[in-house]
């Protein structure tokens, strides 16, 4: 008869008894020497023995009603004996046993799958979710966010006040078919670039403006950027890029957090490149705007050609950013321009354009 060394607690006091456990067919016998009462034996009915599930190598069993008796055993052979003696007793809940074994490979596998899960959600689920979330942002808030980003960005540039005023006069004559309040800022910069911010702000570099030869080109540029705003492309892009931060802010229902994140990153965000699909969408809407205003679509073709020359300026990064795939876009707009009818002269627009040209000359 095998006996196991155990510690036994009777549930009444904290005395730790050094005891011996022997396994019987339908019961456990615990024998110990009580300091006052001498030799004692306790019988545990096998059906009422409970095991404390744990993750250490100490086996703990409890017995009876509250307050329960407890035995602790550090002898690993007990496990094998229990399995042999009571093959059908559920001392070992299979599920927990599975966790208890904790083999290194299992843990590594689980860790790998957790990391995989995190990466997968970060790369695919989070951006998708963020884009959807961007769609839920109310327009009023989008405008506020855009305003904040604009304030942050524009501080880096030198604003050209007179040109800004002229271009905004120009904007007022065109119907851009959007509810967003469009506000253009012209800045002094030796590059050909323009970008739109959420909520209605458009920034144009004066170098680009200077290279334009007709009002149609400016109208096309504005129509294209307004379309980005109208379809919330830039908001969606920003959410996609900053999805990690923004998901946390959204989860915490923290609107201020979103504002801070956007403000902090606005410099980096304005030059995000749009995907091919978004550019296509913006071009289609721009064409619609230009047609509705009875302007010549060839201005759009000229604009794209102009931007293309800008891109060849030994600026490999610029080629990838802002407006990619110019060749395909030119082909598409040319195609659309072929069938264009119902163009009208627009004297007031021409007049505003001449004012812009005049100011540039100064």
């Amino acid at each position, binding site marked *: 008869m095998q006996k196991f060394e155990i510690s036994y607690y009777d549930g009444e006091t*904290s005395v730790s008894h050094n005891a011996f456990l022997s396994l019987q067919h339908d019961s456990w016998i615990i024998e110990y020497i009580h300091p006052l009462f001498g030799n004692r034996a306790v019988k545990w009915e096998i059906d009422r023995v409970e095991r*404390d599930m744990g*993750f250490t190598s100490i086996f703990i069993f409890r017995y009876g009603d509250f307050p329960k008796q407890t035995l602790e055993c550090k002898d690993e052979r007990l496990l094998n004996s229990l399995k042999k003696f009571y093959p059908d007793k559920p001392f070992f809940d299979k599920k927990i046993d599975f966790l208890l074994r904790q083999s290194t490979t299992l843990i590594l596998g689980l860790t790998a799958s957790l990391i995989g899960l995190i990466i997968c959600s970060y790369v695919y689920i989070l951006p998708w979710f963020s884009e959807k979330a961007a769609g839920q942002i109310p327009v009023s808030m989008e405008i506020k966010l855009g305003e904040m980003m604009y304030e942050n960005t524009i501080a880096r540039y030198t604003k050209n006040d007179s040109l800004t005023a002229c271009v905004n006069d120009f904007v007022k004559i065109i119907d851009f078919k959007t509810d967003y309040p469009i506000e253009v800022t012209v800045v002094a910069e030796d590059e050909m670039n323009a970008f739109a911010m959420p909520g209605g702000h458009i920034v144009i570099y004066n170098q680009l403006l200077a290279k334009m030869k007709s009002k149609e080109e400016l109208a096309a540029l504005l129509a294209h950027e307004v379309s980005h705003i109208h379809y919330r492309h830039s908001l969606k892009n920003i959410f996609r890029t900053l999805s990690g931060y923004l998901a946390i802010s959204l989860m915490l229902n923290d609107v201020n957090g979103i504002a801070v994140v956007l403000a902090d990153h606005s410099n980096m965000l304005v030059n995000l490149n749009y995907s091919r699909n978004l550019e296509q969408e913006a071009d289609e809407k721009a064409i619609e705007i230009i047609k509705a205003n009875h302007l010549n679509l060839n201005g759009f073709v000229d604009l794209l050609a102009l931007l293309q020359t800008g891109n060849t300026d030994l600026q490999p990064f610029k080629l990838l950013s802002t407006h990619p795939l110019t060749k395909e876009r030119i082909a598409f707009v040319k195609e659309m321009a072929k069938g264009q009818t119902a163009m009208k002269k627009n004297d007031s627009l021409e007049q505003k354009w001449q004012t812009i040209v005049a100011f540039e000359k100064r």
Partner: protein
Amino acid sequence: MESDQNYSRKITFYGEGNKLFGIYIVNVLLTIFTLGLYYPWAKAAVLRYVYQETEFEGSRFSFHGTGKEMFKGFIKAIGIFIGLYAILIGAILTKINAIAAIGVIFFYIALLLLIPVAIHGSLKYRMSRTSWRGIHFGYRGILKDFMEEFVVGGLLTIATLGIYSFWFTIKLRKYIFSNIRFGNISFSYKGDGTEYFMLNLKGYFLSFLTLGIYSFWFVSDLFAYFIDNMRMNQEGYVIKFRSTASAGGYFGLIVGNLLIVIFTLGLGTPWATVRTLNFVFSNIIIEGTIDVNAIQQTEMDYKDATGEDISDMIDIGLI
């Protein structure tokens, strides 16, 4: 037996980061796949492990709580929160300003009143599920009394713009400790509100002046103020606790944990947890006459885990 009763003792934590990591990883995955429903089991597993690796006088502590018990509490807690939110949203949807305002006020008052309920329930559950050598801990506080303490203290804190909070904290600690039992051992807390206030005042002031460097001394002072004022009483014998945590020790702990968590992108959290528990237990010395073999079972059985889960939802950190 009398001879070995009077010396200083320590609680030792034997937990290992890699074991705790194994438990965490399983917990995280199951919690994700069950959309959070596994949470009570996850919590029970961590508590069970931590308690089982904590040793005093050669015997380990046990946590008897089960995921099932905590799940019932979890469901009740969710029910309470859904109910509260339903009232809040319902009131706002009426679009009548007065009703909406009442709804919002009711919501916040209910939320504030839930804090003492949660602390009380959580203590009662957690203590009853903790044992050492088969002797259970217990919490004998009475909810009504605790609520009264809490509401009075809370109102005074608001009225004094937070200044009273130091006295309030000490009062709560005194109430809670005086109601903790470990078999026939009772507890008490000897802190004093004014002293605690001065300690904090000094801590804030010096931390500010030294651009935060003093904060490590400050946290170790706060820890010491908590530990040094704890007392146990066994049959008339007073047992004291003493903190040996130093500012340098705290610095190592906090900076080390930050580095671990940041550089492992959070995966190293279990190791940080183990370091913290090691630090806390290794810096507590228990002094005085205690007969570890003469603790009598005194507490009743108790099974309601709702407080435990409400306190999780409103994020109250208990020991």
